[in-house]
């Protein structure tokens, strides 16, 4: 297939995934900040939302202060933030239009319908209720698009490239949450927190839609080291780094199989997966959670570059 087509499909999937992630962060943050200070501590959750979205530098070049108004506007609606939810959908729809022949009717209708409806929401929400409805609509739209891709696309390179977009973006998103919140996820022997941190942990799980999953997997009350385990190493958890890499390796292998050639992207993905498979949380804590996550984000970016170089350029 055309490299441009593959590139468009890959970024289409990434942007739709990113929009959903932003919506989850905003929803979790809104929830956390609505609580009395005594339960959440003194940190500025809005600032941490911007950091988790990975756009602190861009944000502070436009705004002096991170508060509910500036952050929701910047992450959800702002045209000057290339990764705002609005821009994510705009770019996704533009990409979809350029590769319409590679999309199924259902995918096109999902993304085109989202784009048309986006106009209805305008540039600002009049109330928290309305904004929450918007965030839920964003998550629903992303699910609809992803579901129609899953249900209707032929299982060929077009599908595999769009999956690569989903999983690279998802791995990056999960890693960024961990990067910002690592100080809350301490190993058992250092744990000094009390009920105060409970809401922070549940908020983290909420932003990756894993609060219920946690209880099913560990059958335990919220423990920070288990939260870290769930998000990093647990292969059952669809947004964990391990699960993302399981999927990346699979999809890259299918592409290599169809094209009859392995390349740097396949090798890099496999190396990262093996590292995640062999890792234990104790070891990661010993090495330093922050360092581990920082390295992972860099590796993940390098894999993105390798995929780009090998197939999309």
């Amino acid at each position, binding site marked *: *297939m*055309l*490299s*441009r*087509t*593959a590139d468009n499909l890959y970024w289409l999937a990434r942007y739709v995934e990113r929009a959903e992630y932003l919506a989850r962060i905003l929803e979790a943050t809104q929830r956390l900040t609505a609580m009395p200070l005594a339960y959440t501590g003194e940190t500025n959750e809005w600032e941490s939302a911007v950091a988790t979205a990975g756009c602190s530098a861009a944000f502070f070049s436009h705004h002096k202060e991170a508060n509910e108004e500036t952050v929701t506007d910047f992450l959800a609606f702002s045209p000057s933030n290339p990764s705002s939810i609005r821009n994510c959908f705009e770019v996704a729809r*533009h990409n979809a*239009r*350029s590769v*319409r*022949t590679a999309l199924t009717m259902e995918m*096109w*209708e999902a993304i*085109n319908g989202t784009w048309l409806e986006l106009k209805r929401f305008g540039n600002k929400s009049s109330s928290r209720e309305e904004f929450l409805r918007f965030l839920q609509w964003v998550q629903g739209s992303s699910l609809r698009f992803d579901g129609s891709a899953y249900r209707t696309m032929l299982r060929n*390179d077009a599908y595999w*490239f769009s999956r690569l977009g989903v999983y690279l973006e998802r791995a990056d998103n999960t890693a960024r949450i961990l990067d910002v919140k690592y100080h809350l996820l301490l190993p058992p022997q250092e744990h000094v927190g009390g009920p105060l941190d409970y809401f922070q942990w549940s908020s983290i799980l909420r932003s990756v839609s894993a609060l219920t999953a946690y209880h099913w997997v560990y059958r335990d009350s919220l423990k920070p080291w288990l939260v870290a385990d769930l998000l990093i190493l647990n292969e059952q958890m669809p947004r964990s780094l391990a699960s993302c890499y399981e999927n990346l390796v699979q999809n890259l292998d299918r*592409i290599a199989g169809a*094209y009859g050639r392995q390349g740097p992207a396949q090798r890099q993905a496999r190396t990262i997966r093996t590292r995640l498979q062999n890792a234990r949380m104790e070891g990661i804590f010993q090495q330093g959670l922050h360092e581990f996550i920082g390295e992972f984000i860099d590796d993940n970016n390098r894999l993105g570059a390798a995929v780009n170089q090998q*197939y*999309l*350029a």
Partner: protein
Amino acid sequence: MALITAFDEMKGLDGQVRPAYAALSQWLAEVRPEVLDFRRKEAELLFRRIGITFAVYGEAEATERLIPFDVIPRILAAKEWDTLQRGLEQRVKALNLYLKDIYGKREVLKAGIVPEDLVFQNPVFRPEMNGQKVPHDIYLHIAGIDVVRVDADTFYVLEDNARTPSGVSYMLENREIMLRLFPELFSRHRVAPVENYPDELLATLKSVAPDVASGDPTVVLLTPGVFNSAYYEHSFLADKLGVELVEGGDLFVKGGIVYMRTTQGPKRVDVIYRRIDDDFLDPLSFRPDSALGVAGLMSAYQAGNVTLANAVGTGIADDKAIYSYMPEVLKFYLGEEPILKNVPTWRCREPDHLAYVLDHLEELVVKEVHGSGGYGMLIGPTADKAQIAAFRIRLKLNPRNFIAQPTLALSTCPTCVEAGVAPRHVDLRPFVLTGRDRIRIVPGGLTRVALKQGSLVVNSSQGGGTKDTWVLDR
């Protein structure tokens, strides 16, 4: 203009229903107006859902709108289509021979059939193509010939579209929608199918691959991109053809060969169905500011390694100044009388024509040779004395710049309007495909209809709509 009575394709001039329309006319008498109205709305919904829109992009806001679709089909009898088909084949054959000659031996110029200055001083003439061989001597692979009708037997060619004619997606989608909405109407007729057009187009394009190409040549469709107003048609056709829809950036030229960038590395391209104008094809040969084209494409083309459909420089076949010479051009190459007539045209560059035009300005339409979109034009029957006098001066000052034609009464077809069903003026654009083996025409074409009462303007930008065109099987 009110003086001229138009020929109605359903009721003729005398009000008697013509045989081809018998079943439709009966159906129209039976069908309740609200049913017709309901179907009409349903058709619009379908068009929106499928997304057959024309993009109109402004500075900031992008809008996409529909071309109005009229649900009452236009019907041509088998015999009428036979004549049209033979006429179209003959005309396109002549156009191809003419293009080969213009960029080759130039016998038509030497014989004095077409004045040299009209060719050499014409901006659409491409000197780069002089002496250039094109694969299998075919220049015009896809032609859209605009035809109008003035009575039961006479079709005129109004215009030859020899560059990148569009509208074929409407021909195909209109039929799809009609099949869905009016199955009972189809069961009362035997309508020749058009749905094989993409197949015929692909066969045509593959047949003209250069000799160096492999047994199964790679065909691509080159679009200016998503911002082009006809982008929907480009993606629609690529999809139906099963070929890659490429933009300039997807192609590159290396060692005189055109490749496309794919996820499996460079892939050689043999035939490019291009929907980009000559000017933008190759920044190295034409407009250097073109970001739509492919650097080096002309050199690959000149080396004979790739086929461009249509060829470069076909504009010299559909130019307004050349049009009036087409009947003589056709006779010159084929030794036959044209089956489809030209609209009678007076060339003001010739003194006796000029004298006639000056004497009859009140009844003629006078056009600028290089004008378009109706600018710099005189419509005699609707102009006042002062306008005619002013135009007379312009005409005398520079007669070479003008041609004149009679005001035509385009035929009408029954059409849904606010107040029910009424006759409206129509034209027809059939699509003619020329391959190495033969000429292919699917029976039908795009019928455009002027929805405003009395209007002769069928352009979509000015309130025109489209209709499905039915050719009845014998």
